[in-house]
């Protein structure tokens, strides 16, 4: 159990960061001149797109492994599954099921490997997951830019560049676009609420919440509070950490599929970029730290972070007559939030 004093500090921080984000978002929204309904509609869309990705970060944090930047690998496995299915031109429900199956299978495999790697570098997981993410990105590009058409037979000529090697930059997902997005669409005035998808995200949140309160969840928490203690309690720490990473990677893969079907266009080489940074920043914006994260942090965080993300370019345009300044601001917020969390939290450890 944590002793009282650091707990108090964490408590304060847990409220400080969301408050800062709330104030920033509000000020930026005032300057942006965007209508409230537009912002709310956008935030709801982002909530659906990013929900699972942010949720996938929670369990590794609880297990004491810090922010899992390798969720980007999960996103890439989902895209890999999707590209293979598109290549073999499977449409309709059969195609979607196969994408899901392949995505889960691949991401579980990759998660297993990453889990093994992370067991060798206990205490330095975060820097290793970042490098794994970069490395996987190179590998991913190598497979799809070079492998397709050379080692991998191309069935669907539409997705290939004219030179016959490499996948195009953008692949249309027309057949999957908005298939489940517009289900149970609720309209209140101008605000559109895709109830089904919100429920899907909330369902996963509920499942995670339940999971954290089962025996498995207790074990994860025990590992998070100290490896030695957990080992004395008879938990196979290494195995548990692998399970945690597999779970996180699979969730991230599902999250990326939700993201892609919502966008409807698939930018093969850039769709997954920054998914890790943005998700981590969103989780931290909700009041999580690299030592503790709860479901509510994820949900509050997505709303706060994405509100700021949506309004800041327009606010930059209105304030400085330069939209780029708003863009810089939001990348600074994304990186800065993570840097801040790292600096503050490690200080608190002592």
């Amino acid at each position, binding site marked *: 159990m944590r002793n009282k004093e650091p707990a108090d500090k964490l408590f304060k921080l847990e409220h400080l960061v969301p408050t800062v984000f709330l104030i920033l978002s509000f000020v930026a929204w005032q300057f942006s001149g965007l209508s409230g309904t537009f912002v709310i509609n956008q935030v709801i869309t982002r909530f659906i797109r990013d929900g699972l990705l942010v949720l996938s970060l929670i369990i590794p944090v609880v297990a004491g492994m810090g922010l899992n930047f390798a969720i980007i690998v999960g996103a890439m496995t989902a895209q890999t599954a999707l590209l293979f299915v598109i290549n073999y031109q499977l449409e309709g429900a059969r195609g979607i099921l196969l994408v899901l199956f392949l995505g889960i299978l691949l991401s579980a495999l990759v998660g297993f490997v990453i889990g093994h790697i992370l067991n*060798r570098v206990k205490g330095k997981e975060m820097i290793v997951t970042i490098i794994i993410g*970069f490395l996987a990105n*190179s*590998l991913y590009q*190598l497979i799809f830019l070079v492998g397709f058409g050379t080692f991998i037979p191309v069935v669907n000529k539409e997705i290939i560049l004219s030179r016959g090697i490499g996948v195009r930059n953008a692949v249309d997902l027309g057949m999957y676009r908005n298939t489940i997005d517009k289900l149970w669409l609720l309209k209140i005035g101008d605000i559109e609420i895709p109830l089904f998808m919100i429920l899907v995200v909330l369902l996963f949140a509920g499942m995670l919440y339940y999971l954290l309160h089962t025996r498995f969840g207790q074990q994860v928490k025990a590992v998070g509070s100290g490896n030695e203690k957990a080992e004395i309690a008879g938990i196979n720490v290494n195995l548990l950490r692998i399970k945690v990473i597999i779970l996180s990677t699979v969730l991230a893969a599902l999250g990326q599929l939700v993201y892609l079907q919502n966008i409807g266009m698939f930018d093969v080489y850039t769709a997954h970029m920054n998914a890790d940074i943005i998700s981590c920043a969103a989780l931290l914006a909700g009041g999580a730290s690299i030592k503790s994260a709860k479901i509510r942090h994820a949900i509050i965080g997505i709303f706060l972070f994405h509100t700021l993300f949506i309004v800041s370019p327009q606010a930059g345009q209105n304030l400085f007559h*330069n939209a780029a*300044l708003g863009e810089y601001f939001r990348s600074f917020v994304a990186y800065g939030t993570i840097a801040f969390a790292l600096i503050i939290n490690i200080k608190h450890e002592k």
Partner: protein
Amino acid sequence: MRNYKIKPPQIIILIFLMILVLLAYVLQMDLVILFNESLTKLVMNGVLVLALIPMLNVGAGMNFGLPVGIVGGLVGLCIAVNFRLTGFFGFFMSLFFSLVICAILGWIYGRLLNRVKGREEIAGTFIGFSMIPLMNYFWTLAPFQNRQMLYPIGGQGLRPKISLEPYFYNVLDNFCLLKIGALEIPLGLLAFYALICLFLYLFFRTKSGRATLATGENEAFARLSGIDIGRIRLLAIVLSTMLAGIGICVYAQSYGFIQLYDEPLSMAFPAISAVLIGGSTGRRTWIFEAVLGAYLLQTIYLLTVPIANEILIPEVTEILRTFITYSIILYALLYRDKRGISH
């Protein structure tokens, strides 16, 4: 330098390099020209690799926050260009400005890193990343006057790529260029590089330098012998940042352009991977290792370009480069912790 052993990654890299040279020979490329270029590339990137040494030796790990020093150097370069300083005077003034700015930035960066002892790498990565958008503000809003630096339309904000052609492009590269037939050896450039190596070598001979090494070897012991750990770490981090500033100045004068905005974001990774190829394990690193690593990595980079163009798809070069870079860093992170060297 004592006990220098060749380790598996270096063997792989050497084999890979030999295959590349062989391929280049088979494809009838001009090996002499490639050799000339490899010397220039060594110094062009080598100073950035040297910049990692003080932090490695003080035990603060690989400096993933190298962009902090790089942006400091870029500011120095921009100031020199703003005043239209040319030739050697311009280059040395840009070095001077860079050193001043990097000292300040390095001090702040060092203070931050001293708070996150043991996790400098991840914190450094994100401090470096955060610097980029922050500096984007500076590039857009700073009141630079020289029209050649600004966007042609609107006249506000620096261009992403500023040409150094009219100022101090290649001043070092062309200084004392020794030509023997087709062979061109940039003596001035190499001498400048050697000077920085010498400076680092002498630094580690001074009292502060020895304290730096002692801190890196065994912090508890160093503290007992009366070394102020916080101050020594700060010194090493400031030195590292200042060297990064010099590094980018040398890089820019060789490359011919000042690259701003998002360009410095991923510059730390090739440098880190170079020092690891040289044989560093993320701890005590010799200057020789940094030089060797920089030469090996840059030569591989150099050789992949024409070969990829010749036999494969052009994009392959960049992907292969990043692939090699990150594989090496990942390998080093795993290997280091397996041996339990790290805390």
